[in-house]
């Protein structure tokens, strides 16, 4: 993923991160108020049991802020006292929950093996026990003791948290730093306390607040049924029950008790969500952010000099921005290149250069948080950045197709390979199932898949990465496209398999004459298959030329520095000419030449203004104003 969402955010404690959000502040504030119920004897304006039969069922007033109930008791005071018993109940339940779930979960996840199997089996069984029946039994035995019920609930409900803690502990156990700690000879206890538990803290807090919310629901439910402390003791559930008896005459009484239950559960739920949000490393590439679809289309680009020569694909001044939690980041700035039928253009760069984003932008398949802000993508005379969804859909597969880096995740894991290919074939041309099937077998033979009949019956997880990439190529070829976009198609593959896939692509290209836009970071792959090269750095094309010219003598210092950084370029066991520093992420890119801080040829004027892509010859362009210095180097 080259969208620069790597977070340089300061590392903070969970509590401070939660309090930094307004949701967190409100919910924590409310829960603090809730805890104040513990001081009910000090705070309550009246005795919760004091009856005043002259003032029954009153609406809120100055003397009774929340009114009075059917026996003339002060509702606010009863709420405070009821809250006290709820808090105590929750704390007991949560304590039991944590005591059971956390040690078992961490131990099962980290130790694995037999202990894990038994613990999970036990959790399975406990999860199938109907909690309510056990709770009812407990309440009778312990003479309507809510404490006993809550502790039981905490223990019985622990299997859920245990599973989640176990899952987290298992993930952390896979992390290499845990292996590193094991290799240092740290004991298991040390590893659990130093490395495993700190990572589980987030999920534990989330699960605790969710459980507390559920516990409130159950606690009030049981007291509602009259299974808690007998009347006249004040409980929230009991108050709802009493309100139910006067439903017709005084519906107001449903509000205070029900409202306070709902608000407490809500606060706990939101607290859980907030903690999850601040602890989760956002795993989706868009981080949940979306750009309004209406904004997707850029303003019509200023008509650049009418395209002299009509290329199959012509990208001009393409800029793309991504919405990140820290604002909008421009990932591509004014990218441009041409690609003709039969050519293979290598889009070369390091991570963060924007090469994959360029490929996706051409197809109109940016992530939900990305949008084209300027420029044009003209494919066979058609402007794609302003094409409708329908127009794009009509092109995909039949005119432009895609294969991507991770062939294993490019195939839908739920469908057999044959079924997926058949669907793609039939989405291009209306044909009978039988004809489509014949065509699928043809395609599979075209990409040299051994034993196509048998292969078609397999699921994606039953084949190797190399085979999966062949299947993906077959899918891409199904609509006989004019342009194939290949996003690092061999990066995840072994070198011998890579060679086979490159040979396959070359053969198919020779037979069909399609154009290929190949995204890669590997100069060897470029040398093997590309006819043209566009080198990208920090969201810009810095050099573009036919491949012989780039390998012969590049006209941008980044290109030559990148080639020199290959271990093939240095003598064995001598230092390689590395480029100092790193590719700057969007947002911290330099004005002027973006490469100047790492460039050996940088001069003062490199910082003066943004460097345009200078057309040196008809086929050759460079974003360097000191190319003459490069030419004289040996």
């Amino acid at each position, binding site marked *: 993923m080259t969208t620069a969402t790597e977070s340089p955010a300061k590392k903070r404690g969970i509590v401070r991160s939660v309090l930094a959000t307004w949701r967190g502040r409100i919910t924590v504030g409310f829960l603090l108020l809730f805890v104040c119920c513990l001081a009910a004897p000090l705070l309550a304006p009246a005795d919760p049991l004091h009856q005043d039969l002259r003032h029954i069922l009153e609406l809120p007033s100055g003397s009774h802020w929340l009114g009075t109930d059917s026996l003339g008791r002060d509702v606010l005071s009863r709420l405070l006292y009821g809250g006290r018993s709820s808090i105590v109940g929750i704390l007991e339940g949560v304590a039991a929950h944590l005591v059971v779930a956390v040690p078992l979960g961490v131990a099962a996840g980290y130790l694995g093996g037999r202990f894990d199997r038994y613990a999970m089996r036990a959790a399975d069984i406990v999860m199938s026990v109907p909690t*309510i029946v056990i709770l*009812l039994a407990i309440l009778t035995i312990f003479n309507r003791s809510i404490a006993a019920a809550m502790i039981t609930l905490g223990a019985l409900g622990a299997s859920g948290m245990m599973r989640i803690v176990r899952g987290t502990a298992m993930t952390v156990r896979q992390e290499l730093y845990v292996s590193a700690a094991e290799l240092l000879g740290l004991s298991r206890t040390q590893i659990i306390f130093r490395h495993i538990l700190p990572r589980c803290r987030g999920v534990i807090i989330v699960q605790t607040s969710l459980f507390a919310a559920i516990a409130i629901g159950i606690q009030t439910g049981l007291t509602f049924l009259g299974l808690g402390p007998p009347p006249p003791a004040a409980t929230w559930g009991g108050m709802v029950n009493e309100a*139910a008896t006067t439903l017709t005459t005084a519906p107001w009484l449903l509000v205070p008790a029900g409202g306070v239950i709902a608000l407490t559960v*809500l606060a706990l739920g939101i607290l859980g969500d907030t903690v999850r949000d601040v602890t989760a490393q956002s795993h989706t590439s868009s981080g949940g952010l979306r750009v309004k679809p209406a904004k997707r289309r850029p303003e019509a680009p200023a008509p650049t000099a009418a395209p002299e020569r009509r290329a199959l694909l012509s990208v001009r001044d393409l800029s793309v921005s991504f919405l990140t939690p820290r604002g909008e980041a421009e990932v591509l700035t004014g990218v441009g290149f041409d690609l003709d039928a039969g050519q293979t253009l290598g889009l070369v760069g390091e991570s963060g250069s924007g090469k994959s984003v360029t490929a996706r932008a051409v197809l109109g398949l940016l992530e939900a948080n990305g949008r084209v802000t300027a420029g044009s993508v003209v494919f066979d005379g058609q402007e794609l950045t302003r094409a409708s969804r329908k127009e794009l859909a009509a092109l995909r597969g039949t005119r432009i197709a895609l294969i991507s880096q991770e062939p294993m995740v490019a195939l839908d894991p739920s469908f057999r390979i044959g079924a997926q290919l058949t669907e793609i074939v039939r989405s291009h041309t209306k044909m009978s199932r039988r004809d489509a099937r014949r065509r699928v077998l043809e395609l599979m033979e075209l990409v040299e898949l051994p034993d196509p009949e048998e292969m078609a019956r397999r699921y994606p997880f039953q084949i190797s990465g190399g085979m999966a990439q062949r299947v993906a190529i077959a899918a891409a070829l199904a609509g006989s496209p004019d342009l194939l976009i290949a996003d690092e198609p061999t990066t995840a593959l072994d070198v011998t398999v890579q060679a086979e896939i490159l040979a396959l692509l070359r053969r198919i290209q020779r037979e069909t004459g399609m154009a290929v836009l190949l995204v890669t970071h590997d100069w060897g792959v470029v040398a093997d298959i590309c006819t043209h090269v566009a080198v990208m750095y920090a969201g810009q094309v810095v050099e573009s030329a036919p491949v012989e010219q780039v390998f012969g003598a590049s006209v941008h210092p980044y290109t030559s520095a990148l080639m020199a950084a290959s271990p093939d370029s240095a003598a064995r066991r001598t230092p390689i000419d590395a480029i100092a520093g790193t590719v700057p992420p969007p947002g911290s890119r330099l004005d002027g030449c973006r490469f100047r801080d790492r460039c050996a040829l940088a001069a003062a004027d490199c910082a003066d203004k943004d460097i345009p892509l200078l057309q040196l010859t008809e086929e050759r362009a460079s974003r360097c104003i000191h190319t003459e210095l490069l030419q004289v180097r040996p």
Partner: protein
Amino acid sequence: MLRLIGHRIAMSIPLLLIVSLIVFALEALVPGDAARTILGENATAQSLAALRDQLGLNDPWTVRYGDWLAGAFHGDLGTSIISGVDVSSSLSTRLGVTLSLLIPSMLLSAVAGIALGFASAVRGGVLGRFIDVVSLLGFALPGFWVALILVAFFAVQLDLLPATGYQELTVSPGGWLKSIILPVLALSLHGITAVAKQTRDSVMEVLEADYVKFLRANGVSERSVRYRHVLRNAAIPVVTSLGLVSVGMLGGAVFIENVFVLPGLGSLATQATLDHDVPVILGVGVFFTLSVIVINLLIDIAYGLLNPKVRVS
């Protein structure tokens, strides 16, 4: 796959044993007992002892459990200590009420939850935020309270539906429908919102998956991408949440039946709890445990159908 189902079924027997054993053991520790409930607080020690002897309460609880188990194997769950009614037959008369509540609630949660969640994930925007708010409410509002609000509005205020009571489906289909509408709504509110939220999250995640991009990029129609590929792959966590929601509904039914005064298993269990009526509690316990087993079995079958890895391995 078949092994998995076999495993589930094999597990159900120890599970039933464990649940009944726990209930029996716990009830044996009860300080009060059925004899005192029947005779009241003022009963003499002799009359209590006589009644206990008559009810067999003086035997050690292990012996009583053995007797119960032996009967249970033949489908005889004993008789209620309080009413003397055969437990199996009182379960079967009340079963219809509880199932009338549970099955429509589960179906409603599944259908409405998945539809809402899917629509909000695909459409986003206002609908998405609406679903977020409603699911928070569904999470926060206690079911019994929602039930009372529904009664206050639809029964008391508008007088559209009965506030309490139950009519047999076979006696009057219209009456049955009217009598379960409010209880089912109250019971499924939480389920609908929980399933909707899970569906929304999981669909949004699948929409970002590489294979979705790949299918779109190579010309598969948006319709097929959404309804064939996304829905199918998003389904597994949704099925999990459906299972949890359904199991939770068993507990919810106890509360809801009490609010609407429905003569189902939940109200039976509540009353039996107050009366220390062990055989009845055990009977309800057996039924609830069987329900959990059936739900889990259905979930496992659904996993198998949805996930080829489970099926082929």
